[in-house]
């Protein structure tokens, strides 16, 4: 059964330097508060895994917490570039990192294989692209039809962290709205943390609600507003203006560093 604790205690107990860590949430429910707590606790040399790095990984890469990035789309959705992501790849600032990139279909299938405790997932894709030479994908023949398919290796992060709307006091979690790959990420990981907008006495079923039982989760921590500037459907709204603001601010290394110090690194943890 998940232990319900504070965000700072959960992060301290869960994540070590050098871990592979997936903070998932596809545009919706991005666990910003938990990512920021990782930075405040000074975690380093992380292998950061996320389909869409988004602003959160732009921030985490920019302060130098990553040794490797695994991803499928490194853009600021609807706005343009992620400037810290570009700077680390183009200019190795603040230091060089390794990258491994896939397509969305590849990443989603890698998580599904990880959640299924399978060594790989079989799919159609990648064929004819230059991705084949630069990532981990291999041809495989269907033993029944002879069709040529590809296999991608399972993703099994040391730690997965997601954000959801609600948990009960036993750590059972409910999220609704765009579910992304969060359930897969939690089930694929050795350890996990779910931050939630609120802890309630009893989960009330929501249309399209995804329930993750507390017994497959390591820690649950209350973090109201913990997905901002992303959003938690029904509770907070996506701060589209912040995504546009980030495009301007993050172009400059010094402005970025000063902003991170003032708004993230020198702040208290949410919910603590």
């Amino acid at each position, binding site marked *: 059964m998940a232990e319900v604790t504070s965000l700072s205690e959960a992060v301290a107990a869960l994540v070590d330097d050098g871990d592979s860590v997936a903070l998932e949430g*596809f*545009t*919706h429910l991005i666990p910003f508060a938990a990512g920021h707590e990782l930075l405040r606790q000074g975690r380093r040399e992380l292998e950061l895994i996320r*389909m*869409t790095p988004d602003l959160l990984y732009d921030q985490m890469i920019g302060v130098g917490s990553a040794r490797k990035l695994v*991803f*499928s*789309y*490194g*853009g600021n*959705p*609807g*706005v343009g*570039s*992620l400037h810290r*992501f*570009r700077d680390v*790849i*183009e200019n190795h600032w603040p230091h060089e990192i390794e990258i491994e*990139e*896939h*397509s*969305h*279909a590849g990443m*989603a*299938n890698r*998580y*599904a294989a990880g959640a299924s405790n399978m060594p790989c997932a079989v*799919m*159609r*894709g*990648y*064929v*004819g*692209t*230059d*991705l084949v030479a*630069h990532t981990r994908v291999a041809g495989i023949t269907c033993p029944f039809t002879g*069709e*040529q398919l590809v296999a991608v290796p399972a993703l099994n992060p040391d730690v997965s962290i997601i954000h959801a709307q609600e948990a009960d006091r036993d750590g059972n979690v409910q999220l609704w*709205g*765009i*579910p*992304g*790959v969060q*359930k*897969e990420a939690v089930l694929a990981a050795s350890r996990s943390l779910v931050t939630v907008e609120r802890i309630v006495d009893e989960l009330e079923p929501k249309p*399209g609600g995804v329930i993750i039982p507390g017994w497959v989760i390591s820690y649950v921590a209350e973090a109201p507003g913990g997905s901002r500037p992303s*959003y938690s*459907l029904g509770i907070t*709204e*996506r701060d*589209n203006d912040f*995504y546009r603001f980030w495009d301007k601010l993050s172009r400059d290394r010094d402005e970025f560093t000063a902003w991170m110090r003032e708004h993230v690194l020198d702040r208290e943890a949410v919910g603590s």
Partner: protein
Amino acid sequence: MSVEAQSREVTAAETQTVAAARRLRDAQTVFIGVGRPSTAAILARMVHNPDLVLVYESGTIGAKPFHIPLSIGDGELAETADAIVSVTEMFNYWIGAGRIDVAFLGAAQIDRYANLNTTVIGDYAQPKTRLPGAGGAPEIASSCGEVIVIAPHSPRTFVEHLDFRTTVGHGEGNGTRGRCGFTGKGPTAVITDLGTLEPDPDTKELTLVQLHLGVDVDEVQEKTGWRLKVADQIRHTEPPNERELEALRELQSR
């Protein structure tokens, strides 16, 4: 049409968006990213095809946004969707299985066979410009019924050789898609701010078939990084009509 709308000239961007929306007249389902494709698809629902099912990569199927969303995962898409599915399900059950009729894609570079680059400009290991990467594009292009590419017409975008092939359009020409085992038709049109290109039925090489108002062949050739194939019978894009223009401008003002 309002006096204000009439008094403004039609922009190239408006013509491009309207031309893209018209391609959705007979589609049941369209897969879209953000930006101009999203605007075009919402416009198509308003003007041409009210039953059109909008499918966004975030897993929202049948979204009916009133506003043009900034991201593919805006709350309004989730709140108005017929169904919301996980990313895994979206790519396997819906895209991979070939359930989507038309997909819109963009690109930083496109070549004469409508192959697309969204990964890097320059060398992969030491890029001049790092672009976002593949996202959903490779599998969208291989499995959706057909692909419409929407791109700005410039020599930087329309290049002789891609720096990186992220997404296969027609590969090396006719036959490539069959050899790769792709189920969809691939790119059937490239709509730019100057005109429309379509793959030649035999060779699959992009051919200029349509010019927007006020554009001539020389200008398109000048902004294309290879010797452009031009159709014998070139057509002119019918300018946006009042209904289209009014709906588009109203949508953008919301």
